[in-house]
């Protein structure tokens, strides 16, 4: 199951992150997970939200450059070595991870991480084959 992620271009300037988050909060969009990639010149804010298209529209209306793409949400045993076991599956299959970040909330005792592999289809197939618990959009949004 692929999950939609929305990425927002942020110029390295005071107040830009706040503005993006504020715009979403005004539209009552709940953020399920987030991460920021920052470079010296710009940042990329990545979000998992239940209403992707609504979020995209409202952000674009406010002059943000956004991109929606697929990522994988997978459950990870919340104990030492948990994440390692998931990464090991990908490593064995020679699949490159671009980035990874974690959900704050949990569904069960397991933690949830968002994984962006270089090739999403391959990543997904590999994880499923190894019986990792890949979550559906519904499962993620209903946390």
């Amino acid at each position, binding site marked *: 199951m692929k999950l939609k992620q929305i990425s927002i271009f*942020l*110029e390295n300037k005071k107040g830009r992150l706040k503005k993006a988050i504020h715009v979403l909060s005004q539209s009552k969009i709940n953020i399920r997970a987030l991460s920021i990639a920052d470079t010296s010149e710009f940042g990329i804010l990545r979000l998992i939200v239940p209403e992707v298209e609504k979020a995209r529209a409202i952000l674009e209306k406010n*002059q943000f450059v*956004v*991109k929606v*793409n697929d990522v994988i949400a997978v459950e990870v045993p919340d104990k030492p070595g948990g994440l390692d076991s998931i990464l090991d599956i990908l490593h064995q299959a020679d699949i490159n991870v*671009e980035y990874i970040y974690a959900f704050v909330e949990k569904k069960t005792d397991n933690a949830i991480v968002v994984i*962006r592999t270089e090739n999403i289809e391959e990543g997904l197939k590999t994880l499923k084959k190894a019986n990792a618990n890949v979550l559906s959009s519904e499962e993620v949004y209903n946390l």
Partner: protein
Amino acid sequence: MIWNKEAECMSREDKESLQLERLKEIVSTAYKKVPYYQERFKKAGIRPEDIQSLGDLEKLPFTTKTDLRDAYPFGMFAVPEEDILEVHTSSGTTGKPTVSGYTKKDLEIWGEVMARALNMALAEKSDRIQNCYGYGLFTGGLGVHYGSQQLGATVIPISAGNTQRQVEILQDFKTSVITCTPSYALYLGEVLEKQGVDIKDLNLKSGVFGAEMWTEEMRDEIEKRLGLLALNIYGLTEIIGPGVAQECPEKNGLHIFEDHFYPEIINPKTREILGEGEKGELVLTTLTREGMPIIRFRTKDITALRYDKCSCGRTLVRMDRITGRTDDMLKIRGVIVFPSQIERALLKIEGLDPHYQIIVTRPHHLDELEVQVEASPILFSDEVKHVEEVKKMIEKRINSEIGLRVNVTLVEPESLPRSEGKAVRVIDKRNFD
């Protein structure tokens, strides 16, 4: 469509004899009526009688922007002040403005050359011309206005700004010809797109764009966004305003109305006169101006002249699109760079909006060139790696155009200034003290 066939299609021989006759007269008037010229000519040891051929013009001293500024406000007028019907000034972006004074005859000539220009750009009596050049001291607004009236077209004197109203009028009045700066035309296209206006529902056939430098790539973009034929107009307040030269639909240069304005091209450094097709600074002499004759004005605009026949039928000499100005020519690490070169590189990149700003700094005694470009969805990605690749690709494109390493910064959309007049593209922060 040729408004004044006799003037615009005259044989070179007839034209040169007309030019010479007019040149002799204007030089003699300038000498008699304007102390500035008399003093200058005397200093150079020239009397008006010395002008016996067009080539003799070379003997006369140049007039610069500084000279006109020194004469501020009315020192260059050649007629009693009561005969001046109207004054205009340059924008004053580079210092104190220069004043231009017009007699009744000057205004008629202005209207005539502008009628030729508009007609060359397909405007006819039956057209509605939405004139988005600013009305006021700036010559753009009234220049188009007078031309449009001589043409007999319907002028919509909406002036610059108030984009929402421009969009409404464009739709409601079924405007067929639009006149504004090219950067405003692009902006207007952007607004139309955003508001979901289909250009097929508009009635635009052509646009007369000028008052700032632009490129062929920008033309393509404007034509695509507004669905019209985009043509280039040239002029300057010191000479008359818009209407010195106009591009015809052949798009191979701007026809100079040389029965009124005599062009020369010089090497800006050595001041020697350059031949046909050679790139240099444009120098203009007014041949018929009563209120304020201008002899050999150094425009600082860089172009070349072409005398071969144009397929439109006009015999008027053509000047190339202005590719730079001797004064906005940037010297970066000793290399000459024009903002238009950077613009050309940017416009070749699919999905990139042609809004940019050039920032020059000298952090450690070495020039640094930063080009700010607005990010757009096509260029953006969720991966840092990809965005950096895009940035590097843009840097490479600019580098191959200007031969210098630049630093491209992606900024958020709509964060760079949009201008309704002349766009400020270059911020030079270097301290040359």
